[in-house]
């Protein structure tokens, strides 16, 4: 009763698998195993990864990481069990050469008890995970009545973040942290951009929203992410256990420069933070008359297009204010970063360029140790924007000049679009000349001369 299909079989390449293919198969399985082990080992390799999501530095992130570890361990065990079983079964029950095709194994069609068991068992495991999850979701909810918390409104804009603080009057920590009143535009409140400066070891409750499209606020070391949705205020919180700088990245696709929309949290010791608050509340500094370039820069800023979008308190208040005050710029989001104290920040342009020189990167320093000077890497490279600048260091003049020279070349943006037009500057400028509404997203190339650029850089550098 055997069938005569063998010749065709061989012709179609069936039959015993040749050695090279067997080697390839073995190599593939080995490679996958090595890859998996390599990946797992990465969990202990935390240095030099400023956005690492498994390197918790605050209670919220630790809460998540604790839960995550349990899930990973369970998942890992299940994975090893399933994978091991499948491969073992495949190996054990393989057809061996010389086996009679027609000698059949027992034809089992199922085992009801077993199947019920392995339906219920995963259910139990998941129920345990489920309980932990529910508890954790509760823990991550901000308690609005909690005292001594800093309240900040976080607003996403294409492609930078605005931080509006709701502070109490007074200068001591308790008054500032407990005196919030739900508005963000009082005299004692602070508006800033790009860097969220917080006191260490203090809970920060966030109201997250957006002025244009959906963004997502994410500081991996401090907490998970929360989307910034226009017309919606989402509650979230974070806390840094220690002073330091914690980088973040926008994680909801928000258009052209989504990749270039970062932010950072700078946690200061409480006393330093109070000094920072005191400084931020002041109007912008007027440059020393001896600093001729800076004085000229201030005048130019006021008279030129800069002041149409950017607020510098004491300079452009009357020309531009935020959307809350009803003045609408041609920017779609209605808002550009507040520059009143821009030089007190370490980074600019959506935290992708260093405004100041960074401190030497400790990982780099460690790597350099013991090497001869000629082979050492530069550890305070201002172009390394994974190592945020320190406002105490000198200003990174090159980056700021390049930005003023041609922002769109530095970071893809669409500043010239008309009402329903396109991002092509020439086409847009024609339509604008014909009277179309300008609806830009990002900073345009203002066609500044080198002299104007120098003056503006000199002026902005003074805005501590």
């Amino acid at each position, binding site marked *: 009763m055997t069938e005569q299909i063998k010749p065709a079989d061989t012709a179609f390449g069936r039959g015993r698998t040749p050695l090279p293919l067997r080697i390839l198969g073995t190599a593939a399985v080995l490679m*996958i195993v090595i890859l998996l082990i390599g990946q797992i080992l990465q969990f202990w390799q935390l240095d030099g990864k400023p956005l690492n999501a498994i390197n918790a530095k605050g209670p919220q992130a630790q809460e998540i990481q604790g839960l995550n570890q349990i899930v990973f361990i369970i998942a890992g065990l299940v994975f090893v069990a399933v994978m091991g079983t499948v491969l073992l079964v495949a190996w054990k029950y393989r057809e061996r050469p010389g086996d009679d095709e027609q000698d059949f194994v027992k034809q089992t069609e199922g085992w009801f008890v077993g199947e019920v068991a392995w339906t219920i068992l995963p259910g139990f495991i998941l129920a345990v995970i489920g309980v932990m999850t529910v508890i954790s979701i509760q823990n991550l909810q901000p308690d609005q009545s909690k005292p001594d918390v800093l309240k900040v409104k976080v607003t996403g804009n294409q492609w930078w973040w605005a931080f509006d603080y709701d502070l109490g009057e007074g200068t001591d920590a308790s008054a500032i942290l407990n005196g919030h009143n739900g508005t963000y535009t009082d005299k004692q409140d602070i508006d800033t951009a790009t860097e969220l400066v917080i006191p260490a070891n203090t809970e920060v409750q966030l109201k997250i929203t957006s002025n244009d499209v959906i963004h997502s606020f994410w500081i991996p070391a401090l907490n998970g992410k929360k989307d910034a949705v226009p*017309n919606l205020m989402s509650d979230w919180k974070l806390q840094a256990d220690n002073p330091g700088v914690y980088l973040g990245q*926008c994680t909801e696709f928000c258009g052209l420069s989504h990749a270039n929309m970062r932010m950072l949290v700078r946690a200061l010791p409480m006393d330093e933070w109070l000094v920072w608050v005191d400084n931020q509340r002041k109007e912008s500094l007027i440059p020393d008359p001896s600093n001729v370039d800076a004085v000229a820069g201030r005048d130019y800023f006021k008279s030129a297009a800069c002041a149409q979008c950017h607020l510098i308190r004491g300079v452009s208040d009357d020309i531009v204010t935020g959307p809350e005050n009803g003045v609408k710029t041609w920017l779609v989001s209605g808002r550009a970063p507040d520059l009143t104290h821009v030089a007190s920040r370490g980074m600019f342009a959506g935290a992708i360029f260093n405004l100041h020189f960074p401190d030497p990167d400790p990982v780099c320093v460690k790597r350099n140790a013991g090497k001869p000077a000629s082979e050492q890497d530069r550890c305070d490279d201002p172009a390394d924007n994974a190592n945020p600048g320190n406002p105490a260091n000198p200003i990174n003049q090159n980056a700021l000049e390049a930005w003023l020279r041609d922002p769109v070349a530095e970071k893809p943006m669409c500043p010239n679009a008309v009402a329903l037009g*396109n991002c092509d500057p020439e086409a847009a400028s024609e339509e604008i000349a014909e009277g179309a509404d300008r609806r830009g997203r990002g900073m345009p190339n203002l066609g500044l001369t080198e002299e104007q650029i120098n003056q503006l850089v000199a002026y902005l550098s003074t805005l501590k």
Partner: protein
Amino acid sequence: MAVDDTAMLALPAGELPRTDALGVFTRPRPKAGWRGWVTTVDHKKIGIMYGAAALFFFLIGGFEALLIRAQLWAPRQTLLSADQYNQVYTMHGTTMVFLVVMPIGAAFANYLMPLQIGARDVAFPRINAFSFWAFLFGGLFLNTSWIFGGGADGGWFMYAPNSGVIYSPSHGIDFWNLGLIITGIASLTGAVNLITTVINMRAPGMTLMKMPIFTWMTLVTQFLLLFAIPVITAAQFLLMFDRQFNANFFNVQQGANPLLWQHLFWVFGHPEVYLMILPAFGIVSDLLPVYSRKPIFGYTFIVFSGIAIGFMGWGVWAHHMFVSGIGPISVTVFSLTTMFIAVPTGVKILNWTATMVGGKLKFDTPMLFSIGLITMFTIGGLSGVSHSVAPSDTQQTDTYYIVAHFHYVLFGGAFLGFMGGFYFWWPKAFGYMLNEKVGKLNFWLMLIGFNLTFGPMHILGLQGMSRRIYTYDEGFGFTFWNKLATIGAFTLATSVGIFLFNIFYSYKKAKSANLACPDDPWDARTLEWISPNPTPEWNFDPIPVVTRVDDFWYRKYEETPDHRLIRIATTEEVIQRSDGTGVHLPSPSYWPIVTAFGLPIIAYGLIFTLWLALLGGIITAAGIYGWALEPPDDPDAGHGHDDHHQLDPGDDHAAAELTEGQSAGTDADAITKEMESVG
């Protein structure tokens, strides 16, 4: 029934008498060459065309994937600009989901499902043809956006308000939106058709619980489509009205709620995930018993876990929105429902493993791909559990970790299953076998390339690499793993090249050596193998009577009391060898392709000038009326099945009745289409 059947039946297929019922149009005769394909209503040809079109789009989507990976090879690469990158990744996702994985599922469903239930065709063959052409034209329309100013740039889930005109002024999103409405119409008509077929047209004895599992999963899948597609269609209409007619559904200035789009999208989007993976589950459930040489372990559990996934798939959509601000109670509820959908999925994996236990496993290429699916999908499933834990998800979502997760599900799950299906059913469809040695090379390279590409993405995500970024900076620790992923992607591309090579190489070899295709090369189990290879036009002659699950197998083997098997018949004895004389097949028709052709014209019109839309409307309307007025060629065509045939023989009312039967049947759907196009 008084119409003279015997005279009709004496005619061979394709030489049918003309019945000029309403006397307007005649139907084309079956032809060889391209006309035969264009006018075909044969589910097998349509299935093959679905597969070919999907592979074509797969090459496009794959090329886009390679561009993405090349761009991310190193920090601050400038191969693609930010704008180009956003278009490429959006079109990659859209193409792979809507134009590759879904239609490959449709290809298998179209080709195999009627064969597995012992039917000669689907319930509405012309609607079936229409579904295919609408899908193809929709897909081509979508891709013509590259010529007309660039592809869509909002990501495949096209979140509002970033999809608005202010934020995306080019026509890319219009093409995306309208193209997917067209493919949605295709899926919807296909779903109605295939569900009707499974429910109503099974061979005698083929009860639901005797159906092959692939057919079961097709049924579940099509139900998911039936209810999921209208939701996304509604959302896409809203987006279209916003973009084309300045409506305010996603206009934030007018108080729009951007989460509306997310809810509508994911109410569709999550069942969508299951309707992409379930056909592959069905394929593997049919393949494993063949190569284990024992029945599927726990048929009932496998079937009901599939149904359970289908139902539970509706209750988990908001897990895509854990971080979007839906509030802690919704997050908790959806977190828990999502966890428990892992239960029926786990049941499938364990039952597949148990199928292999105690078997005598033959590692032919389809089996390798099946085991590949089990193992790779397990990885994707477990990373899915870590997403269902909402707090963990806040760290993982929208990073490369989630990119890794869904590629392990959709490539490691769905696509590996499809590859197994291709190797398994290739002789059934084309009459020659794919070379096994090349096939094994194909499998191993694909497995290596796949793991090399997507494995490192887990790490990238946990290191904080956000998805959808066109570039990254040095100093974040992303470079090494990105390089690895890029190498993997090109390895994967090589393995796809080997698959294409295998198709041509095996064809040439079979042709030059004049090899007869074995009729039952795998010692198969399910009903489709009862007909010779390649499947004859008439599928079955006569229609088989089914007695149990794996009916074909038990025509060859008999179970002894100790649950072992003895051979009772050779393959030659059980394969149908009739020549199909007297089998009536539905005649080809021009109208499905005409009707479908109008749809992209309407869409171009909506984007560029409404006059074009009018032209498209006229073409589609003409197609529908041509369709409705087309004579049937078959005395039984379109009968309602519980009506009473009391007409006089020869009365032209009889003919009218027949026409009406058909047009009533098709009318409803024709009108659906009309409504869609009007709307």
